[in-house]
């Protein structure tokens, strides 16, 4: 059984979720093929062998240097047609989810997005995925071939498992590209919320847009900064920072909630974190019922003190 993993790279560096996807693919079968799309990326491709890719297909074209849904759908659909995998595994990133959705319609095949577990029952892929913002976990059976599974970042372990990693160029027929990327504004070095190992979030208790105490703690921990919906609604933080049912779901090793009361929508978005710390001055805040470690106190005293304490050990 062939499993095809669609890799995601940014400027020649693979996203962590690509390694996670390869490891998950290895659990389904030994015949794991990776597909890398880009331009001038052949050098990086061999790295995928380390995580279990027996074969690494490389599709290169100027039009693949930047992800566009048109070009990527075209090339991936072609490769699926030739490699005939039983399962296609993609990282459930912004582009991965879009590409998976478009592919499912082009190929008329099943898609489970944002999967947190993947297994075979006989020949059938059964994926576990959150619904209702994480309030429910559903096991879904995917019929037909290939089944597409987009995997939520930070859930599957990325385990090294050396395989041949034979690099092979494949044809890159990009088709008609209608969506054009005009520009990008990326904060370099910024850790994305969904991939971060540690997240520090601030909520209504911040009282304003000054997140300097949160940012200082995040810096000390090499963490990403998140926010509750109320902080976003107040305009203190951008919507892309929002954790919860109408924002992002995060699964870090450590989640530190500062001045967040813990509305059900927020809890749904972060309760799969390994360890939760809550800092809030209201001892009745619902967040304390979900936190592993709770500190009742003023976040503007506790958080800077915590930053100093962390610096001592890091």
């Amino acid at each position: 059984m062939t499993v095809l993993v669609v890799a995601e790279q940014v400027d020649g560096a693979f996203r962590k979720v690509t390694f996670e996807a390869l490891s998950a693919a290895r659990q389904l079968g030994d015949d794991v093929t990776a597909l890398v799309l880009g331009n001038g990326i052949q050098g990086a491709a061999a790295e995928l062998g380390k995580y279990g890719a027996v074969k690494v297909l490389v599709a290169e074209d100027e039009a693949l240097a930047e992800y566009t849904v048109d070009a990527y759908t075209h090339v991936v659909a072609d490769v699926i047609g030739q490699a005939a995998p039983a399962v296609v595994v993609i990282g459930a990133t912004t582009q991965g989810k879009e590409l998976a959705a478009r592919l499912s319609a082009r190929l008329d095949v099943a898609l489970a997005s944002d999967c947190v577990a993947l297994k075979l029952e006989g020949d059938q892929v059964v994926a576990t995925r959150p619904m209702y913002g994480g309030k429910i976990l559903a096991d879904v059976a995917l019929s037909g071939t290939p089944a597409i599974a987009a995997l939520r970042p930070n859930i599957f372990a990325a385990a090294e498992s050396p395989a041949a990693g034979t690099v092979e160029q494949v044809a890159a027929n990009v088709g008609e590209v209608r969506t054009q990327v005009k520009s990008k504004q990326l904060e370099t070095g910024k850790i994305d919320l969904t991939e971060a190992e540690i997240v520090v979030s601030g909520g209504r208790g911040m009282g304003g847009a000054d997140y300097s105490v949160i940012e200082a703690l995040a810096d000390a921990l090499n963490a990403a900064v998140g926010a509750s919906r109320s902080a976003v609604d107040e305009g203190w933080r951008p919507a892309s920072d929002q954790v919860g049912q109408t924002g992002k779901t995060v699964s870090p090793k450590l989640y530190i909630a500062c001045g967040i009361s813990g509305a059900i929508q927020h809890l749904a978005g972060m309760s799969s974190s390994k360890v939760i710390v809550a800092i809030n001055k209201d001892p009745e805040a619902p967040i304390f019922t979900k936190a592993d470690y709770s500190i009742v106190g003023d976040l503007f005293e506790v958080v800077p003190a915590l930053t100093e304490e962390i610096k001592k050990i890091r």
Partner: protein
Amino acid sequence: MEILVLLKQVPATESMIAIADDGVSIKTDGLKYVINPYDELAVEEALKIREAQSGTVTIVSVGPAKTTEAIRTALAMGADKGVLVDPGDVQCDNLAVAKVLAAVIREMPCDLIIAGHRAVDDDNFQVGPAVAELLGMPNISMVVKEEIADGKITCTCSVEGGTKVVDAPLPALISTQRGLNDPRYASLPGIMKAKKKPLETKSLTDVGFDAAQLAAKVVIKAMKTPPERAAGRIIEGDSAQAKVAELVKALHQESKVI
């Protein structure tokens, strides 16, 4: 400008969700249903574009009969008309829903389709791009700003670590992300007017499908609730410094996450 909005009715996000006795669906008794929050952004954006350029805003939905409530709310916000396809007993997965939406849209004039980037019930991120694919249209996801000029739509999109600007020729489908706008409330006169606006309900047969053509490829086998988290320990101490020292010790030595 003929603008279509894809809309789904979903349980309000503050709802407690419980699993029904069949183990593969949720208990719906007493749930409050609303327009999917991302679709509400889509309705608002469609109204803004219509206000700037004139045209028509049509709400298109696939769902049970009660979805008319959500469509009426969108009409009360200012949309012009609505079409609902009620699949009856047929269990449609997301791709089947996309096929039905695409079939309905093919029969309508259309310059722009606006969808939520996901529905907050299924959370499958599939319907918008799938509808665009089935219609042979370009799509742009996670839009936080858009501008239409010279037959093109230019969008600022939210991506990991920042934003990017993407454009595509019309007709196109865009999907919304929070930050795009603040949806208006339905006004009382709006609610009165909405009662008289056209809202058509169709069956799968009306739009040319039978159940076999829409057989679900994704079937829910079981549902469970995530493991309950219990309250852990409250860290006591005489001062903030004493508390954080204890916390860091616990994170470092007990749970080993830092």
